[in-house]
């Protein structure tokens, strides 16, 4: 059924379809309408979950960690400084291998205080051991939430489903609302291998020594390093499971594509714009404009940022003259994190082949600065004429 709603509602409906058992969240703009919707669903009885109001984001994720450890399917959501306040628990959730799904409604971080969109919040959590998936429209939001639960529970790794604040969260557009029975067919109930049980008290994730040791059962237990190595190994392997999730989803719902990247007019393109989230759809309009001028340009949206689909991305960018990376975040002191990651992937697969593209890094839309499509087109066009600058170029900067 096609409905017209905002992005937060798309997320809330997706969460409800996944039948979470515990939801804990603290409201923060622009995530607030999402958690309000979920609390309404619980109140009206259309969602049989325990909704636990908390006094902070740190507690929200702590509640999710506890409930997930006890075998519940859980959900939380946040933005910006709320996400930063969770940071300690974010690391914990990944180390504890809990399949938590969290929506990050992307917003600029303070200081100075700003409630508008950029992606500094989730990008700053890149190295926490969570899977990160970025969405470009409402269909992707609702579908990704559903796929995320399947994947998280398959690989025991938490997932952030990221979508741009306001630009997606508060904008209305049509999307297909999946049927409950199809979601139930796609996503079985959560049955963890181990769950806390009051009848058999246990400690989880207590002090774990640098080296392996024999545990109370006489078995050799992992040291900290083994546990952390397995998180890395399994996160890399999650790329394969992501493809499986996409395939199964397409079988049940009849839509889907490449799980990792979303290319548009890339095959014959000499220049490829790359980005995360809604800006990649806006860039399609720029690409159409420049194609009318005869410039062979395409755009590639990166859906999975962690684990990074380096091989697929390098394959898609091989032989291109230039890759133009548009980012709503920056690794202060260097460049956009996605640009660095792309360079790394291209070096790994293309170094010495003579087909390494030039990389141009643009920073745009920081703190909600309006990204005018004509300015975006100009920036993209300029980068097809040759390297604009070695340092990242901030689009629309008024200095």
């Amino acid at each position, binding site marked *: 059924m*096609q409905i*017209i709603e905002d992005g937060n509602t798309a997320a809330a409906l997706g969460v409800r379809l996944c039948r979470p058992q515990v939801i804990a969240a603290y409201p923060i*703009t622009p995530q607030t309408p999402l958690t309000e919707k979920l609390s309404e669903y619980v109140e009206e009885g259309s969602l049989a979950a325990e909704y636990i109001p908390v006094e902070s984001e740190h507690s929200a994720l702590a509640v999710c960690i506890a409930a997930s450890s006890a075998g519940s399917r859980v959900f939380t959501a946040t933005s910006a400084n709320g996400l930063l306040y969770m940071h300690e628990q974010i690391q914990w959730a990944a180390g504890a291998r809990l399949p938590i799904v969290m929506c990050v409604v992307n917003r600029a971080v303070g200081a100075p205080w700003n*409630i*508008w969109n950029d992606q500094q919040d989730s990008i700053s959590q890149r190295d926490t051991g969570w899977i990160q998936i970025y969405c470009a429209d409402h269909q992707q939001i609702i579908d990704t939430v559903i796929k995320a639960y399947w994947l998280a529970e398959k690989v025991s790794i938490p997932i952030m489903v990221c979508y741009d604040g*306001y*630009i*997606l969260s*508060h*904008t*209305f*557009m*049509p999307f297909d609302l999946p049927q409950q029975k199809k979601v139930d067919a796609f996503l079985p109930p959560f049955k963890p291998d181990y769950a806390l049980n009051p009848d058999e008290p246990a400690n989880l994730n207590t002090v774990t020594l640098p080296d392996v040791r024999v545990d109370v059962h006489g078995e050799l237990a992992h040291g900290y390093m083994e546990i952390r190595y397995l998180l890395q190994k399994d996160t890399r392997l999650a790329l394969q499971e992501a493809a499986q999730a996409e395939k199964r989803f397409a079988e049940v719902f009849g839509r889907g594509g490449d799980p990792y990247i979303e290319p548009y007019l890339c095959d014959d393109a000499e220049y490829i714009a790359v980005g995360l989230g*809604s800006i990649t*759809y*806006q860039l*399609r*309009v720029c690409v159409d404009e420049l194609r009318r001028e005869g410039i062979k340009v395409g755009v590639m949206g990166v859906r999975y940022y962690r684990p990074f689909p380096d091989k697929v991305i390098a394959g898609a960018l091989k032989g291109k003259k230039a890759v133009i990376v548009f980012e709503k975040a920056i690794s202060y002191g260097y460049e956009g994190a996605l640009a660095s990651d792309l360079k790394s992937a291209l070096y790994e697969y293309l170094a010495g082949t003579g087909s390494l593209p030039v990389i141009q890094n643009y920073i745009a839309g920081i703190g*909600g600065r*309006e*990204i*005018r*499509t004509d300015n975006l087109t100009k920036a993209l066009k300029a980068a097809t004429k040759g390297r604009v600058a070695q340092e990242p170029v901030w689009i629309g900067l008024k200095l």
Partner: protein
Amino acid sequence: MNKDYIEIRWHGRGGQGAITAAKIVAGAAFVSGYPGVVMAPTFGTERRGAPVTTSLKIARSKIYDLSPIETPDIVVILDYLLLNEAQVTTGLKPGGIIVLNTPMAFEFYNFKDYKLATADVTAISVEAGLPHGMVNSGIIGALEKAANLLSMESLIKGIKEEFRTREPQKNVLAAQLAFERTVTGG
């Protein structure tokens, strides 16, 4: 007006229901052969009574550009006093349509280069039995009369659906009366 891609900017006050009105038009457009509809409210500054805008884009195919409308085909103004507070005609295409809720006569205004449509939606809505200041159903009738975009049938269906628990018949009547009484000119 190019009827394959239409951009409508709504000017109202926080709490006046411009978003709801735009949402109803978006839904009616979607079921009337416009699979591309995007409605984006003003971001971050919604306060009761403060000037707010909402962008509505309607297209024959999916819309990928979610940036705010720069050059609207139509501006809809839910309160004539906003003419003194906001630049409501900024970017309006030459020959574009201004739909204005005002108690003043049509002849009172002079917008050269634009087509004006006026109705006293505030009074009409009260006549239809709605509380004073509820203008977001009525303004839809005025917009349809001025622009002839969709059909009153599809819009009324949308109004009934949106207001199903809040006086649907009175809201429909407000839209119908506004449609009948909207004054348009060159």
